[in-house]
């Protein structure tokens, strides 16, 4: 591991936008767009599966202020996907802007454009729709080969072959085997097989989905959107609307949270379509209810793990089958499922001799799922970490000791992770560190508090990736200004995570300047160099390396201009921060003079654009330990302490890495204990507002304590790996483990509610 002293790296500098955000300045989509836009509202289906037999908008169109109303008859007939993924997308083209066949309670039936929200809502009530109600596929366990098809249409199109077949309600399927799984299972002293169920949890970012569309001074469609994916959104709109990409510009202002929800173009197409039809600016802002019922939540999964071990606790073989529910449309279906195995099984590379990972991803008549922090790994790790804890408890072993014995260690080849090598892995040190910090030996003991309450603890490990290997592309443009400061222009999207700032820290380190001397702009398809966008834990790792490359190239160019000015060869000068010096002399030219020179009679650009991709996706690792107090009479679980140690390589900004971790842990506590997803008989989600969908408050999360174990990832910028997603993965298995220790019962479905716990304790 390299130990370097940096000036700007591994430093907790403030986010560049902090004071703007904390002082409430107008920086979000709804703040920066003109107020005269048409209000776009969507009439949604009350039925889970139906055909629109007839739709009458005549009375609704007469409402004063209503500009127009669009139905399935008015939209282009090209199917598209709204998943923000690199082309050709693994997600099938299975959507129309409005489809006559509505496939979930909340699907689009009509788009209303009006001068005011009031007029739009009044019109919505006057639209008369006659539905032919069809039988719906609501239970994802019955979806595969069900006679009821979610996508019976003939123009369903998969840009990639991922094992999908709409005639079987299948979006994707695969089966991979490494080693003699059955043979080793037969030899094992102990074989456990357990099934786990996780639901379609909502990201619940504070800013709901929103987008604005108008025509710019060249008559091009200009979309301002709260999105993580400006370039993918441009491509998606181009296909959906049938207009060339040169006629579309997509930009994002500040984003009020994403967590993956905004890695799908959930709402962009509606105002864009209205702007195209009316020639007027149009804006959609989802209500919280729409964000809950027609957003892009986590894929519900049922994961069956079969695990074989020796009686000493050596885990020899794992067979993991995932059934994933993509809902009514296939966004991110074929890809999220992969992480449920590929980013869970490799945690036990230390001892595994064989593994099998197979899956089916099915359509149902539920809200379409999408990308949510953790992206399948969260579900897989809940299953794998739970069964390993169960193995430990059955063998009478300490749950941390069994992990010491079996976990992935630095330098190992990971057969379940595309044979990548764990080039930087401090998971063993994370465990040791967390055990000591948490005082595991004492606090994991079951302590009866004498008042019906029990205290004890649970543990879990986690991993993720850093980018999508061989796919994600990040770019950065760096420009020198006349006063020796820099502009950094990116296509990655800072959604609050602070990537604008950490990328500027990299520039400051490499160009030997202050972070304040780096102005950052992102993201705008007209201006930014191409970037896949901010998802898959890729921005620090991929876009960061693009920044490193851009800095190196710009230094060369600055030196070349300076050499001309100093009248010597390019290799005779050195870059020294605010000046370029002729080597072994005290002759220098300042960056200011170089920048001005670059503007006169010059052919060497004082700017550079670089692009990066990676053949590997180095996992960050983490250990989480939780102490709970469980009330056996009511089933209530109180989180007392959550401690975590994370290996994200070298953290570029330790404060921001810590906040990511704390935020992810609290989000994970939410889906473990309180965020539920249930449906009424018609298939409509009951948790349609924050009244029912309870995200954790600051009184629900106990005390957090986060520390880091550094490793040095040789392929990452300054040794960095990712941090954004891994942090949500340990709470569910750690808390479920603690609940077992308190009650003797394993809960294999999330969330684990007080009712379930209390009922399980009634004999």
């Amino acid at each position, binding site marked *: 591991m390299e130990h370097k002293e940096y000036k700007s790296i591994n430093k907790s500098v403030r986010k560049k936008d*902090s004071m703007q955000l904390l002082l409430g300045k107008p920086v979000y989509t709804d703040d920066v767009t003109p107020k005269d836009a048409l209000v776009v509202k969507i009439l949604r289906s009350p039925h889970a599966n139906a055909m629109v037999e007839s739709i009458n908008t005549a009375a609704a169109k007469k409402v004063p202020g209503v500009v127009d109303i669009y139905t399935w008859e008015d939209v282009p007939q090209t199917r598209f996907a709204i998943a923000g993924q690199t082309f050709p997308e693994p997600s099938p083209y299975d959507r129309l802007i409005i489809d006559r066949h509505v496939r979930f309670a909340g699907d689009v039936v009509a788009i209303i454009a009006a001068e005011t929200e009031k007029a739009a809502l009044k019109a919505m009530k006057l639209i008369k729709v006659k539905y032919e109600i069809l039988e719906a596929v609501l239970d994802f366990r019955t979806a595969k080969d069900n006679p009821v098809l979610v996508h019976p249409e003939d123009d369903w199109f998969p840009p990639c072959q991922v094992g999908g077949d709409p005639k079987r309600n299948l979006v994707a399927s695969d089966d991979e085997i490494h080693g003699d799984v059955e043979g080793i299972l037969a030899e094992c002293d102990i074989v456990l097989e357990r099934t786990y169920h996780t639901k379609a949890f909502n990201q619940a970012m504070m800013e709901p989905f929103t987008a604005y569309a108008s025509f710019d001074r060249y008559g091009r469609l200009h979309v301002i959107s709260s999105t993580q994916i400006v370039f993918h959104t441009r491509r998606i709109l181009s296909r959906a609307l049938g207009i060339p990409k040169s006629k579309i510009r997509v930009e994002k202002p500040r984003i009020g949270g994403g967590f993956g929800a905004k890695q799908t173009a959930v709402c962009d197409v509606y105002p864009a379509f209205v702007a195209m039809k009316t020639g007027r600016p149009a804006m959609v802002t989802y209500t919280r209810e729409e964000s809950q019922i027609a957003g892009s939540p986590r894929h519900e999964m049922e994961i069956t793990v079969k695990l074989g071990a020796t009686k000493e606790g050596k885990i020899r073989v794992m067979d993991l089958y995932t059934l994933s529910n993509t809902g009514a449309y296939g966004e991110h279906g074929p890809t999220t499922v992969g992480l449920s195995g590929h980013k869970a099984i490799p945690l036990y590379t230390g001892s595994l001799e064989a593994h099998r990972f197979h899956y089916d991803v099915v359509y149902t008549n539920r809200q379409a799922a999408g990308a949510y922090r953790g992206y399948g790994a969260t579900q897989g790790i809940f299953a794998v970490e739970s069964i390993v804890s169960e193995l430990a408890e059955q063998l009478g072993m300490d749950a941390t000791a069994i992990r010491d014995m079996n976990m992935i260690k630095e330098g190992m080849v990971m057969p379940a992770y595309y044979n990548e090598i764990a080039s930087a892995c401090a998971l063993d040190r994370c465990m040791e560190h967390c055990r000591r910090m948490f005082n595991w030996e004492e606090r994991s003991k079951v302590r009866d508090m004498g008042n019906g309450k029990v205290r004890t603890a649970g543990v879990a490990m986690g991993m993720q990736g850093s980018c999508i290997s061989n796919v994600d592309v990040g770019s950065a443009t760096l420009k020198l200004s006349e006063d020796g400061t820099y502009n950094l222009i990116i296509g990655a999207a800072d959604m609050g995570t602070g990537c604008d700032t950490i990328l500027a820290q990299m520039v400051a380190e490499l160009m030997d300047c202050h972070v304040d001397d780096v102005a950052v702009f992102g993201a705008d398809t007209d201006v930014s160099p191409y970037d896949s966008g901010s998802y898959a834990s890729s921005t620090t790792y991929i876009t960061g390396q693009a920044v490193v490359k851009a800095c190196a190239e710009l230094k060369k160019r600055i030196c070349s201009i300076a050499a001309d000015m100093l009248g010597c060869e390019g290799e005779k000068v050195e870059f020294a921060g605010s000046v370029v010096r002729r080597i072994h002399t005290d002759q220098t030219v300042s960056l200011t003079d170089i920048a001005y020179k670059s503007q006169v009679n010059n052919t060497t650009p004082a700017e550079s654009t670089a692009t990066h991709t990676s053949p590997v996706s180095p996992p960050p690792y983490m250990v989480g330990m939780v102490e709970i107090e469980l009330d056996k009479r009511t089933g209530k679980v109180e989180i007392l302490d959550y401690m975590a140690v994370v290996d994200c390589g070298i953290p570029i900004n330790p404060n921001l890495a810590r906040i990511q971790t704390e935020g992810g842990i609290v989000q994970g506590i939410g889906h473990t204990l309180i965020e539920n997803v249930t449906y009424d008989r018609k298939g409509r989600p009951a948790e349609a*507002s924050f009244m029912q969908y309870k995200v954790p408050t600051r009184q629900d999360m106990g005390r957090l304590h986060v520390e880091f174990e550094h490793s040095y990832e040789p392929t990452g910028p300054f040794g960095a790996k990712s941090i954004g997603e891994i942090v949500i993965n340990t709470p569910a298995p750690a808390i479920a483990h603690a609940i077992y220790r308190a009650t003797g019962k394993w809960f294999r479905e999330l969330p684990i509610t007080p009712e379930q716990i209390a009922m399980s304790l009634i004999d």
Partner: protein
Amino acid sequence: MEIKLKLNGKNILASVEADTVLLDFLRDKGCLSVKRGCDTSNCGLCTVLMDGKPILSCSTLAVRADGHEIHTLEGLQEEASDFVGFIADQGADQCGFCNPGLVMNTIALLRENPDPTDDEIRAYLAGNLCRCSGYDGQLRGIRNYLNSRKA
């Protein structure tokens, strides 16, 4: 109907419809710090001060402001500036969408109780949801500010 109120120190006269909620009225008046997060009084993003007391503007009709004094973050920049830098120093601003509501409620807290304990802070701000930060960074920031005042 006509309403008269004092908004961020200025007397204003406005015509509003009976069903206009204060949140929409304030945004319309250019107070864009006031955010809508939920519509059901659960998230705290739309917190403003009415006669110095924190209220949820999404669940208050604009006509209820008639004859009252309303402050949004636009009108309390100086008071906020005293402490928000401490939250920034923790990186706890994150996406920022919940920040104005949080800052408004923190102002109300500190006016009411200038030296709160950590548990009092947690309880007072419990209605201000944040999905990014995990809350502890906000608490550390406020705590550091309070400590700095004692130093």
